[in-house]
């Protein structure tokens, strides 16, 4: 049995920030990540971030990941385990892990005083005929394939979803030398930032708003997609179908929080549409209804990496503080972080997300 003060499940942006924050006060931290690499989905973000300097604005996502990983590795209080999957949490609070070495696995048990769960999110799909054909990939999968493994997803892509992810990945497809046949979105308006949309349109990629995907066709791989206009009830209008010869369809219709650990840990859960699905209730310091389980990042509600990092820092500071570790700058720092988070969720674009967060506090 391994004993530690704080166990963090998930080495993405929020988990890394949580580890750094928690270790500051002297708490012993164990950070586990199922992948070979730390950094989560930052690894494949080739674009520069927005926001303020504090959240690494104008830095490319993968460089932010590298900086955080470096900081974690330099801390004596943080033990890191890559290729290690958290399997379950038991009634006595023990968390079981499977650590992988090449083709062998070992089984570990951890007893931690507190747990910070930063397990991120899962990609959503859409229901339509033949949506399981090879060539139909989640947006994140396309990004992983090109930006991490330097492999093109195919020759000609239909992007489904004109939110920020759909727009950014369309641009990244062009950068990789892949043709983007078009971007569709059932909504009458483009969901993502107009600065991204304009860049795409200037590159000659059409954006069809008010269109949905009707069906996919192909034998062992996608060959053709049919799209159609939708009416005010989001139903396809007969006679408006367009056929597109594409070998890749990229589904960018959002994410849903990865919530298994909170369910298993007994946290009170709430379905919040604005946050992407089931999330644990939590106080402003991100403590769930199970006193020693904290949440941060996309598993707390779908947002983006900047707020995930701030949330991670808040959860890390709060978790070590609640265990009695004294850190002098605590009060000032945590208030600053809470304000930063408010800033990130400010303005008109943040209305939706603020409404979601108002439903999960306790």
């Amino acid at each position, binding site marked *: 049995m391994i004993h530690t003060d704080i166990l963090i499940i998930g080495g993405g942006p929020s988990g890394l920030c949580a580890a750094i924050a928690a270790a500051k006060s002297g708490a012993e931290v164990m950070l586990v990540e199922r992948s070979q690499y730390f950094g989560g989905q930052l690894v494949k973000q080739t674009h520069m971030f927005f926001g303020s300097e504090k959240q690494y604005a104008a830095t490319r996502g993968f460089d932010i990941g590298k900086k955080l990983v470096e900081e974690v590795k330099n801390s004596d209080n943080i033990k890191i385990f890559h290729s290690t999957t958290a399997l379950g949490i038991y009634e006595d609070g023990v968390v079981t892990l499977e650590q992988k070495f090449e083709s062998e696995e070992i089984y570990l048990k951890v007893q931690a005083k507190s747990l910070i769960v930063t397990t991120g999110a899962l990609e959503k799909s859409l229901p339509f005929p033949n949506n399981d054909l090879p060539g139909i*990939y989640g947006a994140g999968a396309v990004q992983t394939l090109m930006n991490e493994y330097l492999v093109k997803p195919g020759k000609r892509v239909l992007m489904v979803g004109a939110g920020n992810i759909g727009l950014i990945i369309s641009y990244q497809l062009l950068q990789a030398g892949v043709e983007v046949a078009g971007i569709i979105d059932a909504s009458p308006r483009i969901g993502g930032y107009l600065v991204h949309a304009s860049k795409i349109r200037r590159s000659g990629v059409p954006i069809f708003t008010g269109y949905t995907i009707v069906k996919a066709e192909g034998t062992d791989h996608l060959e053709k997609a049919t799209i159609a206009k939708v009416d005010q009830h989001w139903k396809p209008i007969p006679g408006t179908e367009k056929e597109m010869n594409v070998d890749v369809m990229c589904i960018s219709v959002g994410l849903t929080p990865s919530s298994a650990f909170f369910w298993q840990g007994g946290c009170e859960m709430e379905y919040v549409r604005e946050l992407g699905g089931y999330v644990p209730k939590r106080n402003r310091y991100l403590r769930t209804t199970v006193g020693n389980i904290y949440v941060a990042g996309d598993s707390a509600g779908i947002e983006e990496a900047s707020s995930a990092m701030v949330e991670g820092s808040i959860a890390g500071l709060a978790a070590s503080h609640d265990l009695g570790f004294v850190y002098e700058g605590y009060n000032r720092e945590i208030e600053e972080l809470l304000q930063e988070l408010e800033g990130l969720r400010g303005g008109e674009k943040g209305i939706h997300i603020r409404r979601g967060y108002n439903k999960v506090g306790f």
Partner: protein
Amino acid sequence: MNQRINKHPIIDIPLRQKIKFFYNGKEFFGFEGETIASALHAAGITKLSESIKHHRPRGFYCAIGNCSSCFMRVDGKPNVKTCVEPLRENMVVENQEGRGSII
């Protein structure tokens, strides 16, 4: 079919060690640091598995180990998530039938 990206405005393309592996008995090459699924995809193989009941072709969907549609038999072991399993020299990768069995 070669789907490798050889030129990129942002990402430096590193020089990587070539890795030999076998897919359904045939010799293939991939690169160090990539996964089984990415090496197969680069070679034009996108059908990785079949649905258990109706034998519908399946590729990966998420590419980060969440969705389970890329399960293959690797070095005799079934249900390996090929989208996250690192490629290693002389690996034997095969399409798997049904749920896969270890005995």
